[in-house]
């Protein structure tokens, strides 16, 4: 009897003579795609940066360190990015402390309002501030009227303007990094300072901030790299007076066909920017992985909130001003502009119109751009989340070969500025691919490939996080019950990961919809994106149309964010 039962169980035994499994096939397809979309373009970019007139040389590097306008762009980048990183980080520390550790009333509302800047694409933020502090901006005009000035007081199209806008939009990144650390800090760490004799303020300076140093420095470095890589904001604010940062300088070099070897020189500039990014990344990983700051956390009582007392109004005012500057004023400015008939005149009965929105659906290229951005981000979302699932699963659970190299290839296009990814694509695919004769450059496909390469990291990161949360015993329990590896994956792991899969999809869709740095170089007639439409409308001075497009983009972004929050039950999204 017993033996018979054993017999029936036996067929589950693995059959070793099998064709390559589905998993292996998927693995090699992904490897192939990565070689084609990341590895090959990277090699081409590096080689081209050392090529002048078809021969190997260092001329491009000599050129970038001697050409005054390129040199100027490097110093501009540092002059703008370093102060705004510092200002934004200080802002972030203060805000995170107020929100996490004090008894400020209405903290829940502030908490949601303070992360909205993270959802606003930087170039939209920059555009909104041109409506406030541009030559005929609302605030400038208002100040001119009050003080009877003939010249506008502020000029947003300047180095100072860039620092200002970068600071008030940038704080969201370190804030998001610092806030959880600030919330989770072991209460007794601070209480032991209090009982030792330190005041609340002294505790903050001596204990809280130093203990949070890894989070603060990590957040600041992330912001530094993000701002160095950003194209949209400096492109909007730098264009009128030709103030270029490194990214915009690369963009203009690419678009200067008269300059001999212009793409190769842009390649050399890119390598320098990549180097800065790599150094930042290295310092970041060194700091955040240091074990020195790991604190033993027993169960400890939840931290008592600092009672602000008479300082309550100072804190309230501070948070209020930040929200006003980063959320309320800019969004109102865009909204007002999108509803004006003639920009520069006040928004009253005779000047109000809905035509700007109607125009979006009348003009061919704006219509197309909305359709293109929509399809591109949906396809990218689907492909990235599924590929991300496979890569993350095989990296964490399986023992596939070369996962380290693969993950590095996936992280690379997300870590370097989009402008550089676009340049690598141009250099690699501007001519038809040999044998098959596919012309990628100037097609919809090049945008899709670039989006996939750029956003793949988001999918892998989201799903890696989710998979490492699933205890391996869940899968093992299914294996011991008789499920094959594949069966256990589909029955146990996949259902548990489904919410994260949805999150990854929307997390890719959100930045893809408002993408600008790749699209601005890779678009072609018929293949415009929303970002390109907004950008070119802004450059052509179609102010009210730009604002209407920006409103549509913001609405989409906020909507998707809400969906992410709902499907991930608040774990992902802002």
């Amino acid at each position: 009897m017993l033996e018979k039962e054993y017999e029936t169980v036996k067929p589950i035994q693995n059959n070793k003579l099998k064709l390559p499994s589905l998993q292996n096939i998927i693995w090699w397809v992904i490897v192939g795609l990565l070689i084609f979309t990341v590895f090959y373009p990277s090699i081409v970019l590096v080689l081209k940066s050392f090529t002048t007139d078809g021969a190997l040389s260092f001329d491009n590097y000599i050129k970038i360190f001697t050409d005054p306008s390129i040199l100027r762009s490097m110093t501009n980048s540092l002059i703008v990015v370093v102060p705004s990183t510092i200002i934004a980080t200080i802002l972030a520390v203060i805000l995170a402390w107020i929100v996490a550790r004090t008894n400020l009333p209405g903290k829940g509302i502030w908490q949601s309002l303070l992360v909205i800047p993270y959802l606003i694409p930087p170039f939209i933020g920059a555009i909104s501030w041109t409506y406030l502090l541009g030559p005929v901006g609302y605030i400038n005009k208002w100040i001119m009227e009050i003080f009877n000035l003939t010249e506008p007081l502020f000029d947003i199209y300047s180095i100072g303007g860039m620092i200002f806008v970068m600071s008030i939009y940038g704080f969201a990144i370190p804030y998001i990094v610092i806030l959880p650390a600030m919330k989770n800090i072991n209460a007794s760490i601070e209480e032991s300072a209090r009982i030792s004799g330190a005041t609340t303020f002294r505790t903050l300076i001596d204990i809280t901030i130093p203990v949070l140093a890894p989070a603060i420095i990590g957040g600041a470095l992330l912001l530094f790299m993000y701002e160095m890589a950003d194209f949209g904001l400096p492109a909007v604010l730098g264009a009128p007076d030709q103030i270029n940062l490194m990214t915009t300088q690369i963009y203009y070099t690419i678009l200067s066909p008269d300059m001999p070897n212009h793409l190769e020189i842009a390649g050399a500039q890119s390598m320098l920017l990549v180097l800065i990014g790599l150094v930042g990344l290295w310092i970041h990983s060194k700091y955040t992985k240091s074990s020195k700051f790991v604190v033993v956390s027993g169960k400890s009582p939840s931290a008592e909130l600092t009672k602000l007392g008479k300082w309550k109004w100072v804190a309230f005012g501070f948070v209020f001003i930040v929200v006003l500057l980063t959320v309320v004023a800019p969004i109102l400015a865009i909204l007002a502009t999108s509803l004006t008939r003639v920009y520069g005149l006040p928004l009253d009965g005779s000047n109000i119109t809905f035509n700007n929105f109607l125009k979006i659906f009348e003009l061919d290229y704006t219509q197309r751009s909305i359709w293109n951005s929509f399809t591109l981000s949906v396809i990218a979302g689907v492909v990235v989340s599924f590929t991300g699932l496979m890569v993350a699963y095989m990296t964490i659970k399986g023992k596939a070969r070369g996962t380290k190299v693969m993950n590095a290839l996936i992280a690379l296009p997300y870590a370097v500025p989009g402008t550089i990814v676009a340049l690598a694509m141009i250099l690699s695919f501007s001519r038809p691919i040999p044998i098959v004769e596919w012309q990628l450059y100037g097609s919809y496909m090049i945008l899709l490939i670039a989006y996939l390469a750029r956003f793949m990291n988001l999918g892998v990161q989201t799903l890696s996080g989710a998979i490492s949360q699933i205890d391996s015993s869940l899968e093992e329990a299914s294996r011991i019950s008789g499920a094959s590896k594949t069966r256990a994956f589909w029955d146990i792991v996949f259902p548990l990961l489904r919410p994260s899969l949805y999150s990854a999809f929307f997390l890719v869709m959100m930045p893809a919809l408002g993408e600008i740095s790749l699209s601005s170089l890779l678009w072609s007639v018929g293949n415009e994106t929303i970002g390109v439409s907004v950008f070119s409308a802004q450059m052509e001075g179609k102010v009210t149309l730009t604002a209407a497009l920006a409103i549509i983009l913001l609405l989409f972004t906020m909507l998707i964010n809400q969906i992410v929050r709902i499907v991930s039950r608040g774990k992902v999204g802002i």
Partner: protein
Amino acid sequence: MNTLVLKNITKRYGDDIAVNNFNAEIHQNELITIVGPSGCGKTTTLRMIAGFIDPTEGQITLDGVDLVNKEKNVYTEPEKRGIGMVFQSYAVWPHMNVFKNVSYPLKLRKVNKEEMTRRTREVLRLVHLEKYENSFVHELSGGQQQRVALARALVMEPRLLLLDEPLSNLDAALRETMRSEIKEIQRKTGITIINVTHDQIEAMTMSDRVIIMSKGNIVQVGSPEEIYNNPVNSFVANFIGSSNVIKATVVKLDGEVMTVKLLGHEIQLPKGKQVLNQDGFVSVRPHHVLIDPSSPMKGKVIRKLYMGDRVEYHLDFNGEEVRMITDAENKLNIDDIIGVQIKYGLWLDE
């Protein structure tokens, strides 16, 4: 002389009472332990003494000075109280080395450098950490971190030291060492210590006096011996030394002796203020249940827990379970019916 006086201390969170009318006088050089199950209000009480929680009502006085007086609206910030405290999670600051951690309270008090170094080294020697001055938290074991926390609490020579379950994160062997070391440090420094724990053995072995709390109330205060020998109610009897608490009725009063009926049989106990036919409980320590084949009190063995030198048997008396601890030489088997005698029991009204 009384060092710390807590008068009518009550802490309410909305309608929930965390600590209800806590009164205690803690004497100089005393090690007093507040013990009770989790949620009994012991940590809340300690944190009110430290100043991290403001009581709803009451008065806390240290050496005659009000730290808290709700009637006069007095509340002293924790940093002004001059109390030392060791936290459950040690709370050793990860960005400072051992020396800086320990000397921090002196730095805040602007003690000059020479004296700061001298006193820090002295207290590090007291906790056997003199070799670890320059180490950081991540280089220290749990026990060493604990010593850093202790040194930091002692360095400013506080009048009062608060210990918030300081031993609960340590392994059993280390816990025993630390217990005797804390006791030793107290003897050397003459400091007053209030210890909070849920571990009854820790409470019994370390303390001069024990305060037992349950559901926000003080249930009993006394020396470990008093509490063990004369628990006031079944909660204390059960919590300290895990007694059998058996339902009983007084059936006869006779001079200094009374007869009670429990488990269907009559036994004699020393008499207190009891009256005839009163219902209550009798607390019987497991080692006071003796095997006696001639006894009419018969129980069935339902569980056997072997502990090496001793064996704990669970006996069933018509549905009531009684635990018995005997020498390992007495070999009984599950389902054996045996006779037992209760050598000593204590009447409890509730």
